[in-house]
């Protein structure tokens, strides 16, 4: 059963890669790379919706913040504008502070101690 599910997932990912890199030829290469990262964030959203405990959702949100820094970096070289990396740094900082605050809240301490 587990091997069967693994095979279904492999087919899903392979189909995405074929559609992204072979079928649509007129999209620029940078945007194809961004498509792969958006596909990754789809998996993260699966974990956010499905996650059995609160800690799973906090982990997923933290990871999403780190992934978006990568998306901002590729946007910066796709559009040749360097301020996208500033946006990425600010987003990462916000996500880091948010993860720390949520972890403290989960631990049962108040936020000012």
């Amino acid at each position, binding site marked *: 059963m*587990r*091997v069967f599910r*693994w095979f279904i997932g492999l087919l899903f990912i392979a189909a995405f890669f074929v559609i992204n890199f072979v079928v649509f030829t007129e999209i620029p290469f940078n945007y194809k790379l961004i498509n792969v990262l958006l596909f990754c964030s789809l998996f993260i959203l699966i974990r956010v919706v499905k996650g059995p405990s609160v800690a799973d959702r906090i982990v997923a949100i933290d990871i999403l913040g780190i992934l978006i820094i990568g998306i901002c970096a590729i946007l910066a070289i796709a559009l040749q504008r360097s301020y996208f990396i*500033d946006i990425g740094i600010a987003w990462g900082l916000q996500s880091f502070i948010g993860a720390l605050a949520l972890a403290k809240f989960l631990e049962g301490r108040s936020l000012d101690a």
Partner: protein
Amino acid sequence: MKLETKSRIVVFFMSLLVWILITMVFSIPSLVAGIVVALITAIFAGEMLIITERKFHLKRVWYTIEYLLKFTWELIKANFHVAYIVIHPLLPIKPGIVKVRTKLKRDSALTMLANSITLTPGTLTVDVDVDNQVLYVHWIDVKSTDIEQTTKDIGGRFEKLLEEIFE
């Protein structure tokens, strides 16, 4: 010169350098704005960077470079380990939380050791007990539960270098 003043001066020049690297604009108004922001940073948060008086010598720079190279190599190995576990259809994991003893006492050294353990193959620091000098480490593929053996396997990779750098 007092230690706090020295630390504030170091923080001022470092934040000015970061400002120049980020903006890359060499006009007078930009530089004045950078100096004002760096001064505010140094006044409000400057006294925390340098805590102890230590002499600078060349050996510590060499150990720092060796630590960075070793850390990069372990990071790459860790990523291939994770890729192997994730791709394998049957998920070959054997997780558990084990104890690791450490000799480091200083806060900065303990923080760097915990961060290094988190980014190396199969391990994640869960808690640090400063009084007993014990780290609790979640290990994804437990090979032994004896504290001496785990200390040698997990902590021994970085402990000597960090001891040379920070203590």
